[in-house]
């Protein structure tokens, strides 16, 4: 492809992700002729999409390893991951990945989805907020993770199944309010899903206390010690459709291993 100073060689990815290319339906039973031609294209697209997902996860992990993540960048990358998840859910590949038998290669996928579906809302550490920033947060002394906003009512219904997930992930970090950060982040994502404001008035008509929680969380979080990379994965938001991942279990060693795989791939 000629000289490529500064641009990596990802021609497939580039052409694949050119505009307009959304999902392809993965229904191989019908239209055999189509599939023959499609077989080359479809797995390739899925592979590339998976590659993009992995890339994004790595970036997100690296973001969260920083004591002060670049917020804008983290959100953009997280949203990209969500988009991929949503698309993969729609075309069924998400479920496929989850039900795959456990091989080493698919373990990567399993664990990466484990990361995605990990819910640390089990860590209902109702501990106090981290130290707020002097006078600046006194306006936002909200009560601990109390969802008193009605926008949370729909969210809580979805939350319940996830609360049942067992999570052997021990929080070794002294950050007692990380669970709250996760919870707040989830709530925010869900709020966005359940309620798309159509007007500016809608947006700002309700006081969303959970968001103030978030800022206090983040402020508190930042003042604690540096996160280990294992813990950083905790902060990744859970998607809403992970009921099938009830047996996502992993321990530190596996995750280390997987992170290495992801980083090296």
């Amino acid at each position, binding site marked *: 492809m000629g000289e490529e100073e500064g641009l990596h060689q990802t021609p497939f990815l580039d052409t694949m992700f050119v505009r307009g290319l*959304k999902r392809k339906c993965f229904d191989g039973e019908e239209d055999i002729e189509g599939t023959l031609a499609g077989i080359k294209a479809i797995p390739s697209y899925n592979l590339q999409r998976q590659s*993009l997902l992995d890339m994004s996860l790595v970036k997100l992990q690296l973001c969260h390893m920083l004591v002060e993540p670049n917020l804008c960048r983290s*959100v953009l990358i997280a949203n990209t991951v969500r988009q991929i998840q949503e698309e993969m859910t729609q075309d069924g590949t998400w479920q496929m990945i989850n039900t795959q038998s456990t091989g080493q290669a698919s373990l990567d996928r399993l664990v990466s989805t484990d990361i995605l579906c990990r819910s640390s809302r089990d860590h209902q550490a109702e501990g106090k907020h981290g130290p707020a920033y002097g006078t600046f947060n006194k306006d936002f002394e909200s009560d601990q993770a109390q969802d008193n906003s009605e926008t949370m009512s729909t969210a809580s219904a979805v939350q319940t199944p996830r609360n049942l997930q067992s999570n052997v992930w021990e929080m070794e970090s002294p950050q007692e309010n990380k669970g709250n950060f996760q919870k707040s982040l989830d709530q925010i994502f869900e709020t966005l899903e359940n309620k798309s404001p159509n007007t500016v008035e809608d947006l700002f008509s309700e006081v969303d206390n959970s968001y103030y929680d978030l800022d206090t969380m983040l402020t508190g979080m930042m003042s604690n010690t540096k996160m280990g990379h294992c813990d950083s994965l905790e902060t990744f938001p859970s998607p809403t459709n992970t009921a099938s991942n009830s047996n996502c279990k992993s321990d530190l060693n596996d995750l280390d291993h997987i992170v290495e795989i992801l980083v090296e791939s």
Partner: protein
Amino acid sequence: FPIYYHLQAAVTEIVFVFSLPADIISTVEFNHTGELLATGDKGGRVVIFQREQESKNQPHRRGEYNVYSTFQSHEPEFDYLKSLEIEEKINKIRWLPQQNAAYFLLSTNDKTVKLWKVSERDKRPEGYNLKDEDGRLRDPSMITVLRVPVLRPMDLMVEATPRRVFANAHTYHINSISVNSDYETYMSADDLRINLWNFEITNQSFSILWRVWLWRRPWGPVRSSPRGSSRLMLGVVLSSCTVFEEPEDPSNRSFFSEIISSISDVKFSHSGRYIMTRDYLTVKVWDLNMENRPIETYQVHDYLRSKLCSLYENDCIFDKFECVWNGSDSVIMTGSYNNFFRMFDRNTKRDVTLEASRENSKPRAILKPRKVCVGGKRRKDEISVDSLDFSKKILHTAWHPSENIIAVAATNNLYIFQDKVN
């Protein structure tokens, strides 16, 4: 120490190239008259250039900028609470309008905004009683005569003194500051919060937290309207807010749509009637009265659209380019890669790509328009997309408030260009 030389070219003349020995220029800003040009760099230094007065004796030296003052604005700090080092890199400089003989500017790094006073001293007192000319203290018992110190002229000295320090108000990195037209307050913004400060009060500020919907579409920097602080401020929630958003084009959608539509810079026009926004691939001009779509869209480097995945991988997709208006709001300018920068004439709809590079700018050479070849045959002077150097990015540019003089920061070099002088 800086080296600079003069180059001349037709169409656009390179007046001045200033090179910082080791540091990357991180911000460039003219003051309100254009007499001064401030640069901030990664090492926390501010260098102020002053325009040479036009003299009839040397007409070809019109518009030359010379170093006026250099000072260390920010030092690296260590935040013990958070166990992290705070970079001294200057993110933004904003001039205050001149009210007396001294100049005032705001400079900020990630965490702390400082108000600096830059003043000239051309006299000094001589004839102290208690110390001699070298500054050594005299033995009081040796003094037999008292005298009044007198002010004597001296070589001009420009000194910068910090007058205010506004700290500890931002959880995330400060990405922009903006002085309100009342000149009594200013705003500083990070990704999550906007603080409204009064210049006189350094230990508190009025803080506005972004609402939930920010997570959907990360918001860009903040500007206040030149017309008055009662006027809407882009993206600020006080009593009212207008959201400028163009509906997404569904046919153009990809996984990167959101990232590339993220706004990296926003500037009000000098008239106050328009807003210009810069996202990754385009510059858009909005009419303040119409928030549902821009009135003009300019493609900066659309040939990158097919390279988005690579640019995501190497993080270039997160580069934050700035954009500027010229004095009459008829031309807009923004940077690109390979040390290219682009100018768009809003009236004629013509555009040009220029390069800020020493190699291609010999003395008295013509500054040639550049062109990127998208596909097919590459002509002699064209450069192919794959040959672009993505490490050479022009993120920061500035335009003189009234004349056609521009300042372009290319890594550690500052270029000043102007219209050709006959």
